[in-house]
């Protein structure tokens, strides 16, 4: 093979590890055999190389023999690689010139034939000599970190992440596309399993986020695009015109009174109405009115202009324009939340056409004291208090055929809560829950579920509902009780569907702009399913809350805090330090075929279309080498594990 630099002086230290190695491998013979091997300037054996005198021997020998690479033939590199790298550093040798030849775990401990084990040790060491003579001295890659974070999404996850990062001492931009922060949680009535009022625990968090000196709240803003890389992102943010000056607005509500345009109220899931100029809900943060241009008569004083005329503070201006500005951040937390699967997709359940068949969030609003019925349970069609309510779990979940194959995780608990709260408010009413399995893994969850049945006398029927239809003023539910084998029919007053959780509507576009990876359902993909659950595959991006998959409030908050802690890890360094054993590109050899780009899970490689070569962002490269194996021209070579090194190691192992 070409390119062997025989000028290097390599030292070999064969460890006895007491009798652990020396009992099987003839260490003296090994050390002696290596003395004559090309590139080896010095070879010895020692009883415990990892001991202090052993390390001192290495340091002294490196200096004395002017070694520029060493092999320690000893135990697994997972144990003492760092130890010997440090010793070498003390002797003035670059740590990347150290190789560990594993002749204990992978040789002396697993073989009994001394002759064969000795021969194998020789092969292993020779291979590492071949590698060492070709090793480059490397320095960790350093890059400056912009210690400022962007959090996308102002629900509970985004708020928690923003608060934690800000409390760590870093500045945070919290971007929310809606007029107020609060997300889905602020819409909830009471939360399982403690039944504390969602607004009571959420509102203080929202206020805290708005008052925090290091959080810049950007409501009614959207992220337009992101460029750059970890530590150095450039973010373009769109400010949507609110047409109301949030500072001047004193919430007198005069504008709302005169506005002639009536619009379904999103906060109440369309169960009530708002005006075109509105405050999403009384505790909205920031506390200001917003003019919804889509439903306004035209932002035109000639056509209407009533709100502007009546505003004493002169807070309303029809001239506000959309603006776009750029910010620099070092880390991005994505907390874009979820939506409920559309009932339209379930034709057999009426496909949204039956007014008294509603989804879980609509029922939350009906239960909420601040909701459209002021907390009295009334059904949407005629406002009657329903005397029998059917709850249908797994609506659109766990269906591999037409809907969503996964379990939406929170529905078992919130359905139990719904049924319980219904029974608390309508004690003479009947609550029936149709379920397939009840999953209550969580602290105090199963006890809550049992209470729903035992104390509140909710009837749980095991079977999936096949059909729901309107008959007169009743809603008929066709199900089965698989436990008794009886086909059942319920004439209910109202039906609540526990609709599947799906990725937030429209979030796909945003994620494409961020170039952040998702799974096939559109949930954010984590860097490692077990070991890196709050980081994205894309360095510098962190995941929080339901954007990553269905989860309940404590889990979302925990993940948000974990994401914030990870951001803190990143920001604790002034400079990012990254393993230099990455795969750069030899531009002379690169033909720009871009095969390596498709191999890279980290988007570290991009095509420079002008020059027709691939360029590598070494900070993003994790050094797996998949691209190097795929590169047809040999332009992609992993540092200190080049093809040349692998070939020469193979030769040594097979012929040595």
């Amino acid at each position: 093979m070409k390119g062997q630099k025989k000028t290097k002086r390599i030292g070999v230290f064969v460890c006895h590890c007491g009798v652990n190695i020396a009992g099987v491998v003839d260490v003296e013979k090994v050390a002696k055999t290596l003395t004559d091997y090309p590139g080896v300037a010095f070879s010895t054996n020692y009883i415990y190389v990892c001991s202090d005198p052993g390390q001192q021997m290495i340091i002294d020998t490196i200096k004395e023999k002017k070694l520029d690479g060493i092999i320690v033939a000893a135990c697994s590199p997972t144990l003492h690689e760092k130890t010997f790298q440090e010793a070498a550093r003390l002797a003035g040798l670059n740590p990347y010139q150290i190789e560990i030849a594993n002749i204990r775990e992978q040789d002396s401990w697993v073989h009994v034939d001394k002759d064969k084990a000795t021969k194998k040790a020789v092969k292993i060491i020779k291979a590492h000599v071949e590698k060492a003579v070709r090793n480059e001295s490397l320095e960790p890659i350093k890059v400056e970190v912009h210690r400022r974070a962007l959090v996308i999404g102002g629900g509970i996850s985004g708020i928690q992440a923003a608060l934690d990062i800000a409390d760590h001492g870093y500045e945070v931009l919290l971007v929310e596309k809606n007029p107020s922060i609060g997300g889905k949680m602020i819409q909830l009535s009471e939360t399982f399993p403690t039944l504390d009022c969602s607004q009571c625990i959420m509102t203080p968090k929202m206020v805290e986020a708005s008052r925090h000196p290091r959080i810049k709240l950007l409501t009614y803003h959207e992220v337009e695009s992101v460029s750059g890389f970890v530590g150095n992102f450039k973010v373009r943010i769109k400010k949507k015109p609110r047409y109301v000056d949030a500072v001047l607005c004193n919430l007198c509500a005069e504008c709302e009174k005169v506005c002639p345009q009536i619009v379904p109220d999103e906060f109440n899931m369309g169960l009530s109405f708002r005006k075109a100029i509105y405050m999403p809900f009384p505790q909205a943060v920031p506390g200001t009115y917003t003019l919804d241009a889509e439903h306004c008569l035209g932002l035109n004083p000639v056509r209407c202009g009533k709100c502007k005329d009546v505003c004493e503070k002169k807070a309303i201006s029809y001239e506000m324009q959309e603006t776009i500005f750029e910010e620099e951040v070092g880390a991005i937390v994505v907390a874009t939340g979820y939506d409920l699967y559309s009932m339209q997709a379930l034709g057999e359940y009426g496909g949204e056409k039956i007014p008294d068949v509603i989804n879980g969030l609509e029922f939350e609003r009906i239960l909420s004291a601040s909701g459209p019925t002021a907390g009295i349970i009334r059904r949407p069609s005629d406002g009657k208090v329903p005397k029998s309510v059917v709850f249908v779990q797994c609506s659109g979940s766990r269906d591999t055929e037409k809907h969503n194959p996964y379990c939406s995780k929170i529905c078992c608990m919130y359905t139990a809560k719904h049924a319980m709260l219904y029974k608390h408010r309508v004690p003479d009413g009947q609550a029936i829950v149709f379920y397939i399995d009840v999953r209550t893994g969580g602290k105090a969850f199963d006890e809550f579920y049992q209470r729903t049945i035992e104390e509140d006398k909710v009837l749980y029927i095991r079977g999936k509902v096949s059909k729901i239809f309107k008959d007169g003023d009743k809603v008929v539910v066709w199900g089965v009780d698989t436990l008794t084998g009886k086909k059942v029919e319920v004439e209910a007053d109202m039906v609540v569907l526990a609709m599947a959780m799906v990725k937030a509507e429209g979030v796909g576009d945003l994620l494409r702009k961020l170039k952040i990876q998702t799974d096939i359902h559109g949930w954010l993909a984590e860097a490692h399913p077990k070991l890196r659950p709050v980081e994205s595959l894309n360095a510098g991006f962190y995941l929080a809350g339901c954007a990553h998959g269905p989860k309940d409030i404590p889990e979302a908050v925990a993940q948000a805090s974990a994401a914030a802690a990870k951001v803190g890890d990143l920001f604790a360094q002034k400079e990012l330090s990254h393993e230099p054993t990455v795969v750069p590109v030899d531009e002379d050899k690169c033909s720009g075929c871009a095969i390596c780009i498709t191999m890279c899970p980290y988007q570290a490689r991009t095509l420079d279309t002008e020059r027709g070569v691939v360029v590598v962002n070494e900070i993003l490269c994790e050094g797996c080498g998949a691209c190097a194996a795929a590169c047809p021209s040999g332009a992609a070579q992993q540092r200190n594990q080049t093809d040349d090194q692998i070939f020469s190691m193979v030769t040594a192992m097979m012929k040595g």
Partner: protein
Amino acid sequence: MRVKLKAGPEVRKFIERVEELSGENVYACYQCGRCSAGCPVASEMDVLPNQVIRLVQMGLAEDVLHSKTLFLCASCFTCQSRCPKGIDMARVMEAVRHLLDPKGADAFGPGEIPPDLANELPQQVMVALCRKFSK
């Protein structure tokens, strides 16, 4: 009597035959019961559709083969269209019918069409019935 669950080659063969004939994976069923909930004739059945597939999963061939249900299914495919796992129950029913003793009596043969109806029944009824429910 306690039913003894067996796992021998005979049981496996029965399950495999049902899967082979129907082209459906009976183990894909997680027993939600939706097929029974929507079935237009489930109330007449001694074994509900979801129980048919459950008995096949358990390898209890005799219980399935002796059930009236096999001759009540009208292949309307309501269960198929709503099954969350995309299992075509009508095919499972037909596969089990296929495994009945070929020398056994027809559940419904041409001779059983009431003579007073013979002149008025659409042809398709007679053909379909005999195809479905006789050997």
